[in-house]
């Protein structure tokens, strides 16, 4: 069944200030329940696309239609871990986007935040200071915030970075559950293996290289164009992997 897409982009070009465009030719649709992986090297334009979806960056060319509210789930390494807030307060921040400016989030917002924390499996951590949570827990708190925001689309910027295996598996299950409930998910990543398990993949390296289900989109030429690096065959039939030319985190 083909539904009305949550997000539709075609021929999109994006850039900052007067500088050259960062990424061009972006075109895709995101449907309810769909998990889309943005795959590409650092500097390839993943974060820029996420920003445009959040409405922070106007289209240079082409069209972008975002019909629903998007909730941002940023990298928690970038948020300030010394911030004086509890997990519950962070989740409750989501209510701010729905309230008119003269209203403070009230009891129902806190109630909703508590439910959202329970939904992501953190009901007993509501009063813990955000900075004291583990990386995976922080990601889930930010997802709870997006849920409180009533976001139908979650925009996630490399949410698995720095997580250990159990935390990553737990997060992946949560994301799958949310998708099953009808949320659209857009996730920036450079983890090729994980992208293979998602509903669709958008490969980008300063321009869109391919989009579609992983099985169709992720072939060797596309990967080479995406990463420009060496493609190696993993032993034991584990599939191909890419050794990016440079690979570092902040």
């Amino acid at each position: 069944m083909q539904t009305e897409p949550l997000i539709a982009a075609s021929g999109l070009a994006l850039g900052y200030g007067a500088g050259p465009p960062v990424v061009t030719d972006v075109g895709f649709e995101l449907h309810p329940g769909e998990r889309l992986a943005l795959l590409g090297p650092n500097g390839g334009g993943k974060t820029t696309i996420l920003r445009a979806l959040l409405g922070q960056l106007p289209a240079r060319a082409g069209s972008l239609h975002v019909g629903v509210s998007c909730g941002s789930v940023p990298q928690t390494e970038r948020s300030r871990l010394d911030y004086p807030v509890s997990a519950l307060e962070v989740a409750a921040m989501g209510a701010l986007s729905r309230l008119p400016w003269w209203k403070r989030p009230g009891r129902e917002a806190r109630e909703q935040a508590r439910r959202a924390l329970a939904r992501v499996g953190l009901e007993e951590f509501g009063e813990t200071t955000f900075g004291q949570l583990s990386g995976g827990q922080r990601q889930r708190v930010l997802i709870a915030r997006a849920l409180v925001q009533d976001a139908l689309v979650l925009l996630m910027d490399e949410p698995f970075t720095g997580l250990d295996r159990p935390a990553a598996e737990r997060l992946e299950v949560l994301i799958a559950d949310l998708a099953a409930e009808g949320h659209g998910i857009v996730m920036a990543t450079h983890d090729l293996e994980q992208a293979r398990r998602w509903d669709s993949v958008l490969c980008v390296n300063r321009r869109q290289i391919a989009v579609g289900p992983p099985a169709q989109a992720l072939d060797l030429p596309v990967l080479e164009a995406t990463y420009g690096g060496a493609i190696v065959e993993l032993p034991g039939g584990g599939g191909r992997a890419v050794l990016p030319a440079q690979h570092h985190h902040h």
Partner: protein
Amino acid sequence: MFEPLTEPFMQRAIVEMTLLALAGGALGCWVVLYELSYAAESLAHSLFPGLVIAAIAGIPLLLGATPAVVLAALAIAVASRLPGVGRDVGVAVVVTTMFGLGVLLALSPDSPPGVEALLFGDILGPSDGDIAAAAALVLLVAVALPLLHGRLLATGFDRDAARALGLSPAFADAALLVLLAAATVVAVQGLGNLLVVAVFVGPAATARNLTDRIGPMIAVAAAVAVLAGLAGLYLSYYAGTAGGASVALAIVALYLLSLPLGLRGTDGGRLSPAGGYDH
């Protein structure tokens, strides 16, 4: 055009201004990259208790001022490492306390008159000592900056990565602050408070709009500072506007002129040091 150059007092003012512009412009690049503008503006106030103590003890004022301001610089480096505090707040805490202490010390009957006048120098009347100190400062900056260059750059670019490289971010911070403190002691007597911050921040911020590499940035900043100093002194000579304020206005004007030429995108990812928050 050359008339001001024939007046000895203008020659001296130009020499002093040029020396301080060279040092201030070059050092200012690191001040701007490390977001130390507040420290550059306020360190001069923390001279105060040192000046008073030196005056009471009857030792040369510079000898008292230097330890006070270096102490303040180190205290800022320590305070900004406290969680939740950050560098700006560290500056506020340290400088306010030092200044308050200075005011209290100055109540002592032994405290000589007009000590605080030293915080308000005048560019039009530099003494021989001022010029010698400015020359020494240029020398210090010319030696210290190349020595520290690698560390400052690595730490400013990415603190965590610098730590992984075996460099100590705390050392880079402290070294830069101490250098800034030394420059403040010298510059404040020639320029006064107002001009010190203008020379440290303005030319470097201008240069940052015009270049995207640290090497050229330092050269451009020093050149901009010298140019603004000359322009300000000429303005003061021909238009009759207050000396120090004219130089400050010239610096701000050059910065505003450089804005449309800004090469950078919206959020200046380049050359950006990590902020003042250590975890």
